[in-house]
């Protein structure tokens, strides 16, 4: 099941226009990903997935970092996805049992065109983009991951949010038969996350369907996950089945579990640590020495204006 996401060798970039090249690339990328949406169970297994290909030669999309990417092996075996267990290896061990086909996504709430989509239909209208983002976990480790997805704003615009849509609420699949972690009440299931409307509409915010040029492995939140790179990793909710536009600020799973530690915003902030450990430093997976954590995970120039005038120690 190797999917070559590569330009055909016969076509040299010099022989076609930049625009044609671009469209050809994105059409090919989209086609390849969607053709595999039907086989996510197979692809989710790292051993089989490693036979698939990478898209490193594709030009990285907007906002992409040039930092060294975290090896695929690490990104797919060191996960927090409590639906499959609390240890880092549990998701890669057990997520293979989750069936991601068929998969439906409901877009509901305060919008003109609420609908329930099959995943393929949900993604088909958009050009997939690659975004190489830093990922900072609240546990003070970080990675660099090449995501493939669609800006959330494009998807939200399609449903035409109404004036009451001030927040977006996301819900993960609830299926204790396939998600053994949901049989324990360590968190309240299903997992729920939320963004303020302007955060959701920010061009950095991505709905991902793939990474490293492949379909998302199950342990990384297949088939559809959020990526909000300036917030701690737990905000980037996995395996989404529902997107709801709401008037009031959602009470997210982590806020409900430990409100004094986890707030609604959960922006990466080295100066505020409400968890027992320090947020001032982080270990990039693969590095020996810790590095300084950057405000908004280094995305301050893009997002700081969203929080102008807000006391971020209070709105943590």
């Amino acid at each position, binding site marked *: 099941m190797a999917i070559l996401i590569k330009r055909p060798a016969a076509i040299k970039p010099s022989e076609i226009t930049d625009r044609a090249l671009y469209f050809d690339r994105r059409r090919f990328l989209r086609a390849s990903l969607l053709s595999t949406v039907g086989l996510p169970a197979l692809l989710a297994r790292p051993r089989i997935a490693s036979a698939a290909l990478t898209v490193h030669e594709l030009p990285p999309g907007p906002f992409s970092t040039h930092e060294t990417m975290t090896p695929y*092996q*690490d*990104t797919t*075996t*060191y996960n927090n996805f*409590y639906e499959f267990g*609390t240890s*880092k*290896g549990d998701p890669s061990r057990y997520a293979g049992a989750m069936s991601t086909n068929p998969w439906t996504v409901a877009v509901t709430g305060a919008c003109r065109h609420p609908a329930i989509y099959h995943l393929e239909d949900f993604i088909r209208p958009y050009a997939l983009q690659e975004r190489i983002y830093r990922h900072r976990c*609240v*546990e003070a*480790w970080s990675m660099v991951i090449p995501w493939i997805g669609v800006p959330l704003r494009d998807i939200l615009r399609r449903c035409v949010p109404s004036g009451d849509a001030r927040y977006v609420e996301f819900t993960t699949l609830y299926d204790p038969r396939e998600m053994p972690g949901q049989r324990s009440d*360590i*968190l309240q299931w299903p997992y729920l996350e939320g963004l303020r409307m302007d955060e959701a509409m920010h061009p950095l915010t991505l709905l991902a369907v793939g990474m490293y040029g492949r379909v998302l492995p199950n342990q990384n939140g297949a088939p559809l996950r959020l990526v909000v790179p300036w917030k701690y990793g737990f905000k980037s909710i996995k395996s989404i089945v529902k997107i709801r536009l709401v008037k009031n600020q959602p009470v997210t799973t*982590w806020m409900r*579990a*430990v409100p004094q530690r986890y707030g609604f915003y959960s922006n990466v902030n080295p100066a505020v640590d409400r*968890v*027992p*450990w*320090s947020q*001032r*430093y982080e*270990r990039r*997976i*693969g590095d*020996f*020495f*810790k590095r300084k954590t950057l405000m908004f995970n280094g995305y301050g120039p893009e997002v700081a204006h969203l929080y102008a005038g807000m006391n971020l120690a209070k709105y943590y």
Partner: protein
Amino acid sequence: MRNPAFTRRMVTSLTVAGCLIPLAFVAYRTLTGTLGANPISNLTNRTGLWSLRLLLATLAVTPLRRLSGWTWLMPARRILGLFAFFYGLLHLVVYLALNQAFSATLILGDLSRPFIIAGYLSFTLMVPLAATSTMGAMRALGPRWQLLHRLIYAVAILAVLHYLLLVKIDFQPPEAYGALLVLLLSYRIGASLRRRIAGPVSRHAQTRTTQTSGQSPQRSD
């Protein structure tokens, strides 16, 4: 059980061998590079967990011996305690050398954190216990030895606290270790109350029984 010297040797060597298994496992995983994506965090967790487990095992020896009458267990106690100290030392070294890379900024910055304070205290209190674990120290200290070694209760409470204070959300494992510790400590509290209520006569009788079962009184509890 016929040959006490042989039994003692067997129990001692089996305990030492058992206590070395986690070290061998960790060494193997380190040398083969199979500690996962975050090897430093993995090493920290494993060494800390084994220190706590062996502390609880040390505390379980006396109640187990009293309840079962298995006096041959006693030589295991000191070895378990020394290995609890050994894994605790490894845990501290991994934290200082690998986690914080001996950076004064990082190490001092952590000193205000409750879980770090509990960890340092727990380890520090283990030092005098490990240092006075020899027969010579036992003889030299006499009855004060037992008094000093009651510090292990504080060590274990602080170790569980250290764990409880650092977890993100999954409080179940530290709570389970905490519950086990409460059980082991309440056995001792119960035993001590019973002795006090029973008074000097039966206390004398109890001493006699322990002596006949080959147990020197200052080594009990």
